[in-house]
């Protein structure tokens, strides 16, 4: 039998190990989610991220090495975003009918997301590049990074804040909107798409197809509006 250290050094070089680990961690996360009765706190992304973080730490693997393998899964974010066209197409009659409610939900959700984040962070004495990195945190990652860069923020910090926002939004949306007695699937999906982008949209699809479709629209529209309001809001809070 070969030396285990040799096998490890072979595996540590190629994408096979971490690609497999990513899929298995997600399946474990999905199993936990199902076992928990599809409750939002058992978010499959969160469970998978924790499992992989422990594994990376235990094996002394850095994120760069991990991403070499995981990039194939990461790449699928683009095609999956394009695929949101189908639920949107299926819900077109509903979408046309809901133009005004969507406009109101967009302005309120997007505006509150940017302004309240900046106001609270400012109250804690956060300023400069960190404040600029926080401004677009409800926007889908590629757009958020672009906005943060143009405002003098740090792209890596923005990416982490965007993902934390998405996971947090996906976890709280169901109990929060139940407590507020919002029963309209369109409103529930749209609001989580605006506030918590694609991870919120993934959660919306777990619950209801109409909510998922409206969430995808909310995510897309918020990307456009945040690009416009984030620079103005940042100037207001003296970023």
């Amino acid at each position, binding site marked *: 039998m070969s030396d285990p250290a040799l096998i490890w050094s072979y595996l540590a070089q190629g994408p096979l190990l971490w690609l497999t680990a990513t899929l298995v961690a997600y399946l474990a996360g999905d199993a936990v989610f199902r076992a928990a009765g599809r409750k939002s706190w058992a978010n499959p992304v969160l469970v998978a991220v924790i499992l992989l973080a422990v594994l990376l730490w235990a094996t002394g693997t850095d994120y760069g090495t991990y991403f070499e393998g995981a990039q194939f899964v990461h790449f699928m974010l683009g095609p999956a975003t394009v695929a949101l066209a189908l*639920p949107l197409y299926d819900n077109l009659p509903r979408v046309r009918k809901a133009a005004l409610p969507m406009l109101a939900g967009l302005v309120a959700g997007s505006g509150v997301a940017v302004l309240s984040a900046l106001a609270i962070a400012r109250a804690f*004495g956060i300023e400069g590049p960190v404040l600029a990195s926080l401004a677009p945190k409800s926007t889908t990652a590629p757009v958020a990074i672009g906005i943060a860069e143009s405002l003098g923020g740090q792209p890596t910090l923005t990416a982490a804040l965007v993902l934390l926002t998405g996971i947090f939004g996906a976890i709280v949306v169901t109990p929060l909107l139940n407590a507020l007695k919002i029963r309209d699937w369109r409103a529930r999906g749209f609001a989580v798409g605006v506030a918590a982008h694609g991870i919120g949209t993934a959660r919306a699809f777990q619950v209801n197809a109409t909510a998922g479709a409206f969430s995808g629209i*909310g995510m897309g529209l918020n990307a456009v509006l945040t690009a416009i309001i984030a620079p103005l809001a940042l100037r207001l809070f003296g970023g």
Partner: protein
Amino acid sequence: MIQTLAIILGFQLTGEVASRALNLPLPGPVVGLILLVTACILRPPLAEAIRPTTTGLLSHLSLFFVPAGVGIVAHWDLLKAHGIGLAVALMASTLLAISAGAWAFTAVARMTGSEEPQALKDQGRE
């Protein structure tokens, strides 16, 4: 499946080129999404052709966020350095934004008479 992937990647590619060429504020995949919806409206059989694979892809949308999510751990020190202020700002503003968005949507739906009984959640339960 391969045919659908080729169609979807084709729309993403077109979206990516359009986004860069025209300096749009939208990322390529979102432009690709808009183009694909337009194509489905013009040619409804396209929607049926891509349905099986697309549905499969979307039912595991969460999976595709995992690699970037692990990046949170890679940037943990950076996050920790800014500590409690960032955490409070992020959580409170997300709660407020979801509430405000959903509330504004339903309020305007009521005002404009565009409520939809079929789109209601049963008695506030899942």
